[in-house]
């Protein structure tokens, strides 16, 4: 399965347009700050509405301006790791992680809480409030939350930006396994060339 | 008929509270269901009856409000009477040496203070008070030095605490408060008769309402009203006040 994206979204005075042809594996979105990478992920997740174009994952049409199709976010099955975390401040780390997990049908889950906390190294944090996590801790919880929601595609907006090299490597290995074993299409935003070169089978440069 | 007899619901003007409470107890002591008493301003009670509230007896402190009720809902024929009358007095704090300013030296008597009086537009006591002051030629002098209160008891309290050197209240109020003394009584001719009309709304369902009404008008009931400083109904008003005839206590001025 893979993304098939062609869309235009107005943002302030500009319009952000992108076309991503279907390609297996990880598609990296690359481009300078402020060019519109986050906007594209938002459009794929159903958080902003493009004025034209379409978004498909495999056979499923998430959005089609011409056909008037626009699935709501919860029907799209896109696990989204936001650039700004967006953890639920009133919930513990555990309940943040389990939020999507509790909502998804059992047969779509591909990872459980123990496995996720293991490779993310957040087992000791489970009963803490998310309000006082360090930057990198919050980022890892956000990754775990998205993976645990049993998504059919992943949208990752600089998911590793505040992590050290060791952690980064461990998480990248899990992402690669997800890509390979589950064949989840992944849209990946990063400024790190090395990361992108290692992961991506396709690099889309926005400009 | 009614399977479970219901005590009558009596809507009574707040100024009759003590007398009505004692009367209800005396009535209950005779083996009747104790009437339920609801005290508020006559106007509020009148409006409640006019909207069809299931009240069994209305004791108004103001004949205008009884007239108004009569014009809006029907009263049971022959049940409108006057249950009590009152007098209008000038009061001062207990330890004051003020006297009734007979010669018209009100400004001196007030000495920069205010004359506590219930609202002359809204409250009957204020209306009577204003009429009396006009009648004795004092209104123009005091009208800028009055403190108008929401009800008689508030005027009483102002004087009782010394926040006003003089006040005009009912005789029944004055004897109830030990903090004030009566320094003079306004002549009965200076204001319209102060009457407390009573009547049973037509939609009343309580069987005992008429019995309680009669009790209030009986010598035993009247002695209770007398104890609290009320006067007896005028002889001319007995036994029934004329059904829908305009009552005699028109305002001295519109």
């Amino acid at each position, binding site marked *: 399965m893979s993304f098939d994206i062609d869309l235009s979204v107005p943002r302030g005075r500009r319009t952000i347009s992108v076309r991503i042809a279907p390609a297996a594996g990880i598609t990296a979105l690359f481009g300078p700050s402020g060019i519109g990478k986050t906007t594209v992920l938002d459009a794929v997740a159903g958080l902003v509405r493009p004025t034209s174009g379409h978004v498909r994952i495999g056979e499923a049409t998430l959005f089609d301006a011409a056909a008037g199709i626009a699935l709501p*976010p919860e029907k799209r099955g*896109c696990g989204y790791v936001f650039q700004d975390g967006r953890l639920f401040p*009133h919930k513990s780390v555990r309940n943040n992680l389990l939020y999507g997990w509790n909502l998804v049908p059992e047969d779509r889950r591909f990872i459980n809480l123990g496995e996720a906390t293991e490779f993310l190294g957040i087992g000791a944090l489970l009963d803490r409030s998310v309000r006082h996590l360090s930057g990198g801790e919050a980022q890892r919880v956000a990754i775990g939350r998205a993976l645990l*929601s049993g998504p059919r595609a992943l949208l990752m907006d600089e998911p590793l930006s505040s992590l050290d090299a060791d952690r980064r490597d461990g998480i990248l290995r899990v992402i690669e396994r997800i890509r390979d074993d589950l064949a989840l299409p992944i849209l990946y935003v990063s400024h790190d060339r090395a990361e992108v070169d290692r992961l991506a089978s396709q690099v889309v440069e926005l400009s | 008929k009614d399977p479970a007899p219901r005590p009558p619901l009596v809507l009574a003007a707040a100024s009759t509270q003590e007398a009505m409470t004692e009367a209800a107890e005396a009535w209950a002591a005779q083996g009747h269901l104790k009437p339920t008493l609801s*005290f508020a301003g006559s106007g*509020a009670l009148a409006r409640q009856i006019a*909207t069809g509230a299931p009240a069994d007896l209305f004791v108004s402190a103001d004949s205008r409000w009884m007239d108004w009720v009569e014009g809006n809902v029907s009263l049971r024929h022959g049940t409108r009477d006057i249950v009590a009358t009152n007098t209008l007095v000038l009061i001062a704090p207990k330890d004051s040496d003020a006297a009734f300013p007979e010669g018209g030296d009100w400004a001196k008597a007030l000495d920069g203070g205010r004359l506590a009086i219930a609202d002359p537009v809204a409250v009957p006591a204020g209306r009577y008070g204003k009429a009396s002051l006009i009648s004795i030629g004092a209104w123009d002098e005091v009208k800028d030095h009055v403190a108008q209160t929401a009800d008689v008891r508030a005027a009483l309290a102002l004087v009782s605490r010394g926040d006003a050197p003089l006040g005009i209240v009912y005789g029944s109020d004055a004897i109830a408060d030990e903090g004030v003394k009566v320094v003079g009584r306004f002549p009965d001719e200076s204001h319209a008769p102060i009457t407390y009309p009573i009547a049973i709304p037509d939609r009343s369902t309580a069987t005992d309402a008429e019995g309680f009404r009669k009790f209030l008008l009986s010598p035993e009931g009247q002695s209770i009203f007398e104890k609290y400083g009320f006067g007896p109904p005028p002889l001319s008003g007995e036994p029934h006040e004329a059904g829908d005839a305009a009552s005699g206590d028109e305002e001295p001025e519109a």
Partner: protein
Amino acid sequence: MLSPAEWAIVGLSLKVAAAAIVLTLPIAFALAWLLARKRFYGRMLLDTLVHLPLVLPPVVTGWLLLLFFGAGGWGGRTLQALFGTTLMFRWTGAALAAGIMALPLMVRAIRLSLEAIDTRLETAARTLGASPLRAFASITLPLALPGIAAAVVLGFARSLGEFGATITFVSNVPDETRTLPLAIYTALQVPGAEASVTRLAIASVVLSLAALLVSEWLVRKGGRSYVL
């Protein structure tokens, strides 16, 4: 301490205030949500209407209620026809009056909390599979908890203190509509009853202090347990 009759008044006041809050809270929340989140034609009008019981003298509100729910009013006739019941002279009417007087305070408190919520958290919940309703229940509602708690405290206090609309609408019937403020008013009509007034006033204060403590405790617990 209090006499049995005074305890009965306290009990009645609690019943009326509790019923008023239970009745009004969902309505207040719905109104707050509309005013905070939706832009629609007539929004300012709705906002003004909600404030009405605050601006109008309570007596006028009571009078309007009387006109509407009296035996001849539209609401009164409907209640009579549908349920064979009336609000007049009943504690249910006192609860309605108290609830309506509390409504503007409750709406404002909840609305302030709703407006302070970062709506991106709700969209995050949606991407995790939550329907709009579930996102609302699991994110919006608990994050609005401080406002809801404030609404309950304010509304409860306002209900406990409500006088003018109540006495105008449902009169001053012992054991039915004579709540604490009406009992205090009744006592105030008797010179020298200050002792009783003071006792009843202290009872009011103690009740609202209890409400305050409970609400602060709930908010703190809600904030700490992360169960919501």
